[in-house]
C-alpha cells in the first residue's frame, strides 16, 4: 500500500515534471496578472523573441492603480496611466483574457479567479502578487512570484522551485461567536510570528476551518503569507463544491461529476506526516486588532497594547519600541483610546460580498461617527452590482460610508486612496506596514464587522460594544 500523503504532497506530485537537486519543475495551471508586476516580464519575453506558451491559462485584470471614485474616474498620474495602457496592449498582442479598468468584469485579481470559477481544487496557481495565497481556500497550491518568475511561467508554463516544507495548523476549541475568519488569521500570525511559516506551505485543518464559508477560508489563506508562509490551503469539501457548482468556468455536465470524484481524493491521508504540526487553541477567541507595524502585533479588541516587559525576546521588544514610535502610541494603553480617523472596508482579504453583508448588518440603522471618514470598496464589479441589487449600497450610504468602485484601493495606496499622514485607520486589508496606506499612515487591521462598529463609535470597537438600534425610530 502506498504510504499516506498530505494534500500538499498530492497536488505537488501531480504537477511534477522533473526533479533535480536544484529544485522541482512543476506545471502551472493558472497564471493571473495585475498591471504592476507583469509589464517588465512581457517586455523581457519580447526582447528574447519568446512566445506566451499557454495564453489560455492566463487571465489579467487592472486592480492596483485603478481609481475607485465616481464613474468617469481619472487615473492618479501619467505613469499609472502608461502602465494600464501597457497591460491592454500586451494582453491584446498575446491573446490574453483581460479585464481593464471600469470594464464590467473588472476587480481585484484574487477576487475574480474564484468568482469566475477559475480557481478549482488541486490546481497550481501563481500571480505576481503575494496574496495569491487566497486561492488556497479551494485546496489549490497558489502562491506569489516575482517578475522574473512571471516571465518564466509566460515562456514555459512551469517553475523550478524547492519543494515547500509542509505544516499543519489545526484550530482547537470553539471561538467566540463574534470571531471571524480575519480574527483567526490574525491569531495564526500572532502565534507563528511574521516568519514562523517561512519555507512552509500550511494546510489549515480542523472543524473551525471547515465550518467557515469559502469567503472566510479565502480570508484565512490570504493572510498565510503574513506569517511568512509560501501559502496556505484548505482541503476541498462539500462547501467548496457547492460554491463552485454553476460558476462560469466550473466544469459542466459529466465533467463536473468526474471533477468532484477527483476532488474528493484531495485530502490529507490519515497518518500522513507534516514536517511541522501546530495546534492553536482558539477557545473564546474574539475580534482582534493590530497595534503595530506588522500583522503579528495584535491584541483582542477591548484590551490593551502590551507592556514592553511582556515581550519574550529583545528582538521582539526592539520591534515593539520601533512600531509604537511610528504609530505614535504608548505601551499599556487601551486600544479603544487610539484616535481613529479613517475606516476602510475592502481588499482581497475582506472585499467579497459576504464581507460587505457582514459589515452592513452592523451598520443597519446606525450612523458613522462625525469624526470618521469611512469608505467601502467592493472587490469586483460583479460584487458591486450584486450588493446594489440587494440594497447593501444603501445601508452603507445611509450610514455615511462612501460607496466606491472596485480595486485594491486603500490596501496599497497606489491609486490616490490614502490615509493622511499621522492619522490612524481601522482597515480590513492585510498589511499594517509603515506607509502602506500612504506616507505616515497608521494602520490597524480588523475584520469587516469590527471596522463597521469602529466607524459608528469612532473608536476601535466590536459589534457587541454597540448600543441596540432603536427599531421604532424613523418609522
Amino acid at each position, binding site marked *: 500500500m502506498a504510504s499516506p500523503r498530505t494534500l500538499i504532497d498530492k497536488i505537488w506530485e501531480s504537477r511534477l515534471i522533473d526533479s533535480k537537486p536544484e529544485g522541482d519543475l512543476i506545471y502551472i495551471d493558472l497564471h493571473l496578472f495585475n498591471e504592476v508586476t507583469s509589464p517588465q516580464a512581457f517586455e523581457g519575453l519580447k526582447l528574447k523573441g519568446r512566445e506566451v506558451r499557454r495564453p489560455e491559462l492566463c487571465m489579467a485584470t487592472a486592480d492596483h492603480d485603478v481609481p475607485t471614485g465616481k464613474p468617469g474616474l481619472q487615473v492618479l498620474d501619467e505613469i499609472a496611466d502608461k502602465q494600464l495602457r501597457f497591460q491592454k496592449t500586451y494582453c491584446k498582442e498575446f491573446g490574453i483574457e483581460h479585464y481593464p479598468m471600469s470594464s464590467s468584469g473588472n476587480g481585484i485579481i484574487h477576487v475574480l479567479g474564484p468568482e469566475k470559477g477559475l480557481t478549482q481544487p488541486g490546481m497550481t496557481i501563481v500571480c505576481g502578487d503575494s496574496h495569491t495565497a487566497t486561492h488556497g481556500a479551494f485546496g489549490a497550491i497558489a502562491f506569489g512570484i516575482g517578475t522574473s518568475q512571471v516571465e518564466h511561467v509566460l515562456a514555459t508554463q512551469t517553475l523550478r522551485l524547492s519543494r515547500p516544507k509542509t505544516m499543519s495548523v489545526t484550530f482547537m476549541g470553539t471561538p467566540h461567536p463574534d470571531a471571524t475568519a480575519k480574527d483567526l488569521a490574525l491569531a495564526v500570525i500572532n502565534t507563528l510570528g511574521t516568519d514562523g511559516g517561512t519555507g512552509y506551505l500550511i494546510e489549515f485543518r480542523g472543524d473551525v476551518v471547515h465550518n467557515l464559508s469559502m469567503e472566510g477560508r479565502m480570508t484565512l489563506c490570504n493572510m498565510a503569507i503574513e506569517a511568512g508562509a509560501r501559502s496556505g490551503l484548505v482541503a476541498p469539501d462539500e462547501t467548496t463544491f457547492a460554491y463552485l457548482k454553476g460558476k462560469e468556468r466550473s466544469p459542466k455536465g459529466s465533467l463536473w461529476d468526474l471533477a468532484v470524484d477527483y476532488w474528493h481524493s484531495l485530502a490529507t491521508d490519515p497518518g500522513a506526516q507534516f514536517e511541522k504540526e501546530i495546534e492553536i487553541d482558539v477557545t473564546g477567541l474574539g475580534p482582534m486588532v493590530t497595534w503595530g507595524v506588522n500583522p503579528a502585533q495584535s491584541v483582542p479588541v477591548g484590551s490593551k497594547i502590551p507592556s514592553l516587559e511582556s515581550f519574550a525576546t529583545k528582538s521582539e521588544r*526592539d520591534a515593539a519600541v520601533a512600531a509604537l514610535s511610528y504609530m505614535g502610541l504608548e505601551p499599556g494603553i487601551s486600544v479603544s483610546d487610539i484616535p481613529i480617523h479613517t475606516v476602510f472596508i475592502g481588499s482581497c482579504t475582506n472585499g467579497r460580498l459576504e464581507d460587505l453583508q457582514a459589515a452592513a448588518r452592523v451598520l443597519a440603522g446606525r450612523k458613522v461617527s462625525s469624526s470618521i471618514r469611512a469608505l467601502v470598496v467592493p472587490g469586483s464589479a460583479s460584487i458591486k452590482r450584486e450588493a446594489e441589487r440587494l440594497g447593501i449600497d444603501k445601508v452603507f450610504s445611509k450610514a455615511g460610508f462612501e460607496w466606491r468602485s472596485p480595486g485594491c484601493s486603500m490596501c496599497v495606496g497606489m491609486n490616490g486612496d490614502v490615509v493622511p499622514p499621522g492619522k490612524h485607520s481601522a482597515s480590513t486589508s492585510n498589511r499594517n506596514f509603515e506607509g502602506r496606506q500612504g506616507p505616515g499612515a497608521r494602520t490597524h487591521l480588523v475584520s469587516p464587522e469590527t471596522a463597521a462598529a469602529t466607524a459608528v463609535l469612532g473608536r476601535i470597537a466590536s459589534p457587541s460594544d454597540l448600543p441596540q438600534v432603536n427599531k421604532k425610530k424613523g418609522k
Partner: protein
Amino acid sequence: MEPVSIIKGSAYPIRRSNIDTDQILPAKWMKRVERTGYENGLFEIWREDSSFIINDPERSQASIIVAGENFGCGSSRQHAVWALRDFGIKAVISSRIADIHRGNLPQEGIVPVELDQDVVELIMAATEANPTVVIEIDVTNRTVTCEDAQVFAKPFRIDNASHFNLIHGYDPIDITLTFEKSIEKHESSRDPWLPKCSPEFA
C-alpha cells in the same frame, strides 16, 4: 547574467527585523514599467532621516546589507530587488530572508545569504563599529568570512536552485526550455475539466 563567484565589500548594517518590501521600495515606484532606474526609491522614506545608515558617507562604497531577521517580507515586488541592484547592493545577509524575496534576489545577481542569528550578530556588530570592515562571500563554496567579526569560512544557507543559477549565470528560462518534451508530456495528460481562459470571456 554574469556568473557570481565571490562578493567582497563593506556593508550597511540595518539592525531591524521584519524589513518589508514596502520599506525597501514604496509602492508608488511599482507604477513604472521600466526595469532600471530604481536607486532613488531604495528605502526612500527611511532615507529622509539623515542619520539612516544608507546615508552614511563613509559607507558610500558598501555593497552588502546586513539586516535583522525576516528581511524582505510582505509584497512579492521584484522592484525592491531592482532598487537594491541599482543602488549597488550585491548581497543581503540575514538569519532569515522571506521566501518570495529570497527567490527574487538571485534573479538580479544579488546573493541571499542566510546565517544563524549569532553569526549575523557578530558581523553586524563588527560593521556597525567600523564602516570599512570587509565581508567576503564565497558564493561557489557557500561560505562567509569577516575577519573583524572573527567569522572564518562560515557556511551559509542558500536554495540550491538560486545557487545553481548564480554560479553559472544561467537564464533559468533557457534551462527549462530544454525540458520541452517533458512539459508537452504533462500537457497531454492534464485533467479535461481544468478551466481555460480566453479574451472572448472578457
